[in-house]
């Protein structure tokens, strides 16, 4: 299952993350950690909590109360607990979309801080981005809190959003992966299930929520990786983006760059439009200078349109420029008789020639046209 995860989403760190998770779960089982977290989280989730800045203190108190065993090392335990609570609570916050405050993150990365700030006004769709950020942060923090997060997102708050995340997901393989992982976790944590039952939550919901949360985690991780990979690629494309990290800044730069490029194209098209009448005149002059028998092309308008149509029919079968040719023939014949000058309607069959290549020239052209085509290519 982990191999599937690796192949599907390039989650190279997943195996180690899960291994660490299991190790950590075993460690925490000994410490009786689960009950504390579950107690804290389920109560807080039911209370539609707002997390103030001193949530760490609250957590510490609850942990001290809930745990029967004395804690030999309060500090290292509090630290991961704060992390875990931060992450998990932030996750659940996003899932339930309450107006939560930003929590202080002792070791939060820049992306994590950005994501926590973004969490405030965001809708359901953005919650996915945040969860992606969170999942990434967890992986950055050596997966120390993934196990807690996975348990805690088993709360009913997560169900609503993980279902919505689930809507996006499509792979059945990951479902099976989730199930196998969930069963593994369940086997190793009987205490946890007990506690949740005591809290009035069905054991079924634990497994279902667990499954759903893991599923959402994996898929958001994959999606997150796709987005970050593309962002890195764009960083190379867009000049001057090396210093900027984070989605918002990058998006700003990309938007500015695309706008500037489009403005340049606009400007250049104006310039080309100014130059073009002179091009037309030069073509006309050269036409007049050159010798071609069909000097009066205007009576041939009907004929040329037939030619172009037949030419289009013949050119339709060869290949690449079918769509282009189709568009132009559909559009050009109505224009043919109206305002076209010599250069214009002579150049139309020339485009077909050019698009397919001279080698496949196979419709009958009168010699006058051939001379004109040569002329055009000389000029162009």
């Amino acid at each position, binding site marked *: 299952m982990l191999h599937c995860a690796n192949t599907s989403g390039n989650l190279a760190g997943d195996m180690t993350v899960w291994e660490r998770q299991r190790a950590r779960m075993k460690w925490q089982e000994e410490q009786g950690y689960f009950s504390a977290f579950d107690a804290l989280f389920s109560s807080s989730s039911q209370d539609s909590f707002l997390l103030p800045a001193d949530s760490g203190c609250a957590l510490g108190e609850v942990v001290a109360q809930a745990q029967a065993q004395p804690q030999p090392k309060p500090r290292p335990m509090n630290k991961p607990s704060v992390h875990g609570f931060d992450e998990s609570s932030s996750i659940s916050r996003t899932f339930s979309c309450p107006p939560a405050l930003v929590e202080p993150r002792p070791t939060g990365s820049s992306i994590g801080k950005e994501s926590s700030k973004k969490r405030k006004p965001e809708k359901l769709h953005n919650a996915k981005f945040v969860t992606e950020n969170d999942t990434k942060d967890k992986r950055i923090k050596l997966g120390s809190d993934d196990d807690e997060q996975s348990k805690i997102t088993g709360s009913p708050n997560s169900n609503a959003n993980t279902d919505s995340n689930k809507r996006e997901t499509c792979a059945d393989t990951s479902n099976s992966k989730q199930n196998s992982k969930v069963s593994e976790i369940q086997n190793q944590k009987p205490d946890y299930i007990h506690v949740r039952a005591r809290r009035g939550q069905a054991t079924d919901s634990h497994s279902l929520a667990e499954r759903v949360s893991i599923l959402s985690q994996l898929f958001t991780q994959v999606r997150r990786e796709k987005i970050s990979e593309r962002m890195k690629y764009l960083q190379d494309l867009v000049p001057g983006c090396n210093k900027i990290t984070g989605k918002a800044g990058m998006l700003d730069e990309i938007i500015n760059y695309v706008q500037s490029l489009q403005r340049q194209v606009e400007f*250049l*098209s104006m310039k080309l439009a100014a130059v073009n009448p002179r091009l037309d005149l030069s073509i006309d002059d050269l036409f007049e200078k050159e010798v071609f028998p069909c000097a009066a092309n205007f009576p041939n308008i009907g004929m040329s349109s037939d030619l172009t149509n037949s030419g289009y029919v013949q050119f339709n079968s060869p290949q*690449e420029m079918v769509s282009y040719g189709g568009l132009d023939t559909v559009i050009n014949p109505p224009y043919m008789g109206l305002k076209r000058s010599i250069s214009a309607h002579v150049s139309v069959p020339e485009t077909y020639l050019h698009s397919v290549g001279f080698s496949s020239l196979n419709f009958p052209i009168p010699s006058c046209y051939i001379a004109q085509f040569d002329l055009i290519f000389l000029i162009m």
Partner: protein
Amino acid sequence: MITNPPTASTERSRDAKRRKKKKTQEREDEKQPRWKSQAQQQIYSSKLRQALARVNLGSASPKGKAVREAADRVLAVTAKGRTRWSRAILTNRLKLKFTKHKRQRRARVSVHRLKAKGGASVQRKVRFLGRLVPGCRKEPLPVVLEEAIDYIPALEMQVRAMNALFNLLSAASSSSSSS
């Protein structure tokens, strides 16, 4: 003076096109159709010249826009329709030509821009970028990013090609007018 570079370039573009026919089969799984290659630029320039010659006396007043739209259309054709934005450009131009609501469409775009510019959330930026890249208005972020990854080099190539074309044409026209 006129004859030498254009014949060389047209021959080069023809050869490049024949070579490219073989190359596209090899490189189909590549992300960009090599917008940075000289061959692509030649192809684009030659097609653009043809399109411009046609555009010239077609519509007198919105000439600037006509040139711009022709340039975008040729760019989309050069992309061979592998990307959303290229397909969107081609279908939009076709629709516009038949429905003739060009100005209304432009107005709608600018109004959306005004509405969505305020508020600096990621989602609004994604939507805005989606509007900039043709055909990506309602796409989620990874799709928009992917389209942008292809669209930006295409725009760069378009700018380069139009610059070169402008220089060539201005040089040609100045020399012809002088001679």
